[in-house]
């Protein structure tokens, strides 16, 4: 369902028209368009936006709202250079089954961003061609950017040596 404030927004209306069940909410706070998408339909939303001249994917990242549930928000920023627009897509993913379809099928640029999000948050991007660690070493355990992963003293302590 599209909220009242976004009824006049061309981008949101076009997505709503493509598939009425795709959007669950959104806002235009601080003049930045945010659309909340059902996680299962993220690829449809990305394809629909790409057809609307959103040529490039700027970034894919994640926000951990621990201990809230669903705890992860997978956030996509898309830019249309020809229309000079930015749009932010957001999918809420639960902690027990942190999984979402990989955007690499639509935008090749998603490759490294999704590897980074998996590495640091542990959200699995299904269908990703090479979902391996990118920032941390291969032998690393855990996903450091999760809110329940401490800044100090997780496994190694440098304090008392």
């Amino acid at each position, binding site marked *: 369902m599209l909220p009242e404030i976004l009824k006049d927004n061309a981008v949101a209306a076009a997505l709503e028209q493509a598939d009425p069940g795709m959007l669950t909410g959104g806002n235009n706070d601080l003049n930045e368009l945010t659309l909340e998408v059902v996680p299962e339909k993220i690829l449809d939303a990305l394809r629909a936006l790409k057809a609307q001249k959103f040529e490039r994917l700027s970034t894919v990242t994640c926000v951990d709202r621990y201990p809230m549930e669903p705890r992860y928000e997978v956030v996509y920023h898309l830019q249309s250079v020809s229309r000079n627009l930015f749009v932010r897509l957001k999918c809420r993913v639960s902690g027990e089954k942190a999984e979402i379809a990989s955007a690499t099928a639509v935008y090749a640029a998603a490759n490294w961003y999704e590897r980074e999000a998996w590495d640091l948050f542990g959200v699995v991007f299904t269908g990703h061609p090479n979902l391996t660690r990118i920032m941390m070493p291969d032998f690393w355990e855990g996903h450091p950017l999760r809110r329940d992963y401490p*800044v100090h003293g997780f496994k190694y302590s440098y304090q008392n040596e």
Partner: protein
Amino acid sequence: MSETLTPTAETEKSGHTRRMTLNMGPQHPSTHGVLRVVLELEGETVLKCTPDIGFLHTGIEKQFESLNWQQGITLTDRVDYLANLSNNLAYSLAVEKLLQVEIPPKAQWLRVLLCELTRINSHLVWLGTHCLDMGAMTVFFLCFREREDILRLFEMFAGQRLMTSYIRVGGLALDPPRGWEKRVRSFMETLPSRVDEYETLLNTNPIWVKRTKGVGLLPVEEMLEMGMTGPCIRAAGLPMDARKMMPYSSYEKFDFNVPTSTDNDVYARYAIRIAEIRESIKIINQAMAGMPEGPVQTSAPKVVLPEREKMKTQMESLIYHFKIVTEGISVPAGEVFQVVESPRGELGYYIVSDGTSKPLRVHMRTPSFGNLQALPNLIEDRMIADSIAIMGSLDFVLGDCDR
């Protein structure tokens, strides 16, 4: 980082050619930092290229979550150590957007001036090191001579040459020092002739031209698809520049061009950066000529520390001072994605606040990460000697890439 990419001197007999896997970096001089690239070669042709990053990952995004909003500024310097002020600005603008504070014109003008000096600084380092990779050592010394002047200016403003932290949430850290106009103006007077000097050394140099012209081509659609930004995409003919498209910090009041080219090769990327240095000189001169008077910090008592004198004499100022120093400022809940044009391309800060005095999440969309991702597309099926020229032309900073 990946262990599956262990280099082996494995030789495979396929027909008559010999395949070889070559490990380049992480200590290779032309990787400009600690980038490791695994190249699969057949003769001198690169068949497959796998960049391996993460050696400089320092967990800056994690550290942000344990510092308060103003302390975070010091981390932004360390992201991209050649464009510190651009990073300061992007972070400050994002937080200011959440706080909804107005920045006085003088601070905005000085921000523009300093960011353009940063752009010149970064392009000079790029030019010097890129030429060094290609065997032209003289240019390196000349570029670093001018860079030294810029670093002295930064030291004059901020007391620090590299980690300036001069642009803060709410304005600037300090009033500009006495006599800064004279120093900047005299530097601006000499710089154009210095840029001419680099061009005389390079534009007709047969080795430079042979190694850069027609090298590193990639269709502009593929560049967009792979997430490339900055001078590389402008050299492919797309005038994509955040300063023009989404003006921030009064850039709309300055008269400048966005240089583009359609040649799309390494030489075009060099030409674009030289043209950008000249445009930056134009912007700095305009900023000097029209510098407004007034304060350099916004008058929001909950965001900016009060003046020392007021803090000592007025109760209210003392309370605000105490609150800011002990608790830090609290930023209204919300999220913001602020894009600025760093010397390398699109630099975006995605900041999420939950209304407390520490960020919930700070994500940096850094240009080097996006540009480096396209490296295999640029290098594969080309000669290995060209890979050095192509890598250099991307102008990545590994600190910016790994964060």
